């Protein structure tokens, strides 16, 4: 197949995720909360920053919302080692395709590439060493619309029409998103940028409230979630300086 980077890697002996039996004494890093929803100008993707292994916090500044190219991001839940590797493969695959074929890979083509990687990873996922459950979001320039997709560990792709969630904290906020979108003041896809960011902060704070593996906001350490906005102009990471006042004025409740 023309311009297929993964094929090129495989010809050189590369293999994604080898299945190995997991030892009983090892707790793998996983558990997380990631979410994506459409707002007025595009799509917002957010994730908490905690990486845990069993009941231990490994790291509190993980970036789980990873930019793949100028118009797409993958938010990851699951084993970070495999997820980061997948992101690296995707990033190079899309670049390689664009540079060899002299055109951008279509949005559908990008979705297929994610599915294929997950499918290659099934043995490792079932062995317990490499399960990844990503959310893929982006702006389809050809159609001029934002899109959200979520996957299961086997590589099946589902379109999240208005929103998608993944990770151990997701059951909590899935319900909230449904409620907000159906009975809120306005549907999510009409929220202006600032309101969308406030909702994302509130949702992640709720997830952290009920899920020990999801990290909340830690103001003393100026630790805020990662929020990325994808519009026709590209991916934009919201700086902490913007999140801080929003959190303090519209998320914190003193009771």
């Amino acid at each position, binding site marked *: 197949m023309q311009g297929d980077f993964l094929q*090129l890697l495989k010809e050189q002996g590369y293999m994604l995720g080898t299945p190995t039996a997991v030892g009983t004494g090892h707790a793998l890093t996983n558990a997380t909360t990631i979410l994506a929803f459409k707002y007025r100008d595009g799509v917002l993707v957010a994730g908490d920053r905690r990486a845990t292994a069993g009941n231990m916090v490994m790291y509190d500044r993980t970036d789980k919302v990873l*930019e793949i190219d*100028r118009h797409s991001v993958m938010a990851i839940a699951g084993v970070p080692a495999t997820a980061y590797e997948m992101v690296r*493969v995707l990033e190079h695959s899309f*670049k390689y395709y664009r*540079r060899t074929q002299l055109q951008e890979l279509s949005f559908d083509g990008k979705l297929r590439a994610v599915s294929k990687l997950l499918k290659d990873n099934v043995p490792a996922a079932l062995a317990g060493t490499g399960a990844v459950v990503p959310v893929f979001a982006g702006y389809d320039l050809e159609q001029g619309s934002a899109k959200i997709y979520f996957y299961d560990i086997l590589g099946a792709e589902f379109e999240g029409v208005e929103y998608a969630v993944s990770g151990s904290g997701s059951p909590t906020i899935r319900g909230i998103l449904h409620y907000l979108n159906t009975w809120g003041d306005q549907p999510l896809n009409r929220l202006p940028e600032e309101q969308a960011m406030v909702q994302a902060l509130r949702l992640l704070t709720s997830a952290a409230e009920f899920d020990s593996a999801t990290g909340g906001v830690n103001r003393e350490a100026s630790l805020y979630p990662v929020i990325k906005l994808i519009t026709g102009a*590209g991916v934009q990471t919201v700086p902490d300086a913007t999140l801080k006042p929003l959190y303090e004025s519209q998320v914190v409740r003193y009771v």
Partner: protein
Amino acid sequence: MYEEPYRWVEAVGNRRQYLDEQFKQGSPVVALTYDGGILLTTVSKGTPKLYEIYDRLALGGMGHPTDLEKLRFSLLEMAHVEGFNRSPSDVTGSRLVKYGIAPVIKQAFEEVYKAPFIVRILVAELGQKPEKDAILTINYDGTFEEMTGCAVLAATLAAQAKMMSYLKEQTPVTLSLEQALDLALRAWAIGSLAHQQEETDQQAETETPASKAGASTVSVPTADALMAHVRGIAGGRTIECAVLERQAPGTSKYRSLKSADFSRLLPKALQSVVAN
């Protein structure tokens, strides 16, 4: 018959002659650093001649499109595999050229019973700092040169030398993109005029071998005359420009200039040509 050393040297000599002949119709390529990165310029006919290779690498070429494609693909493969297995900052132009394609080109050139690559290649590399910007050129026989500031490709070494001396004497300390584009197009015109001059010289030589003196003493044309030449030729062709921009968002720094950029950057005299 090539086993005899003399025959081999003769064959390689013939090859040079044959290859030099192939570039006569080619369009020169100019690469030039400016305050925000590196600019590549050419005027192409039919197939594009400027390409993106990696995050900070761009390619310009002259010669046969299929040969150029072959080498472009091997550069792309090497760059991406290396960038994935090591890291993007380990992908450098000089390694790709010196250990990657230059040996391949040389081998093809010297294996006289096989076809050589009909290409001249230029690889521009945007450094992390402006001092680290580099431009490499490779000839059809595999010889490469590493340069800073500016570099060119042209049909003959004489034309190349003329373009380089024009660029060297005009270059102010730092150019804006607009100034760089203007200068690059003038340098392109110098090269293109030199090609034409060589052609007419050659014809004159075959007709009257005795009168050869006049040709070499032509003075450098004025800027207006050079732009008029570009306008004259660009009509049926495309002015092709690409930049490696240091401040571009994201990891990929390559961008080819579109008509919107041209209407902002090109001298007025040329805008009508691009619009067509």
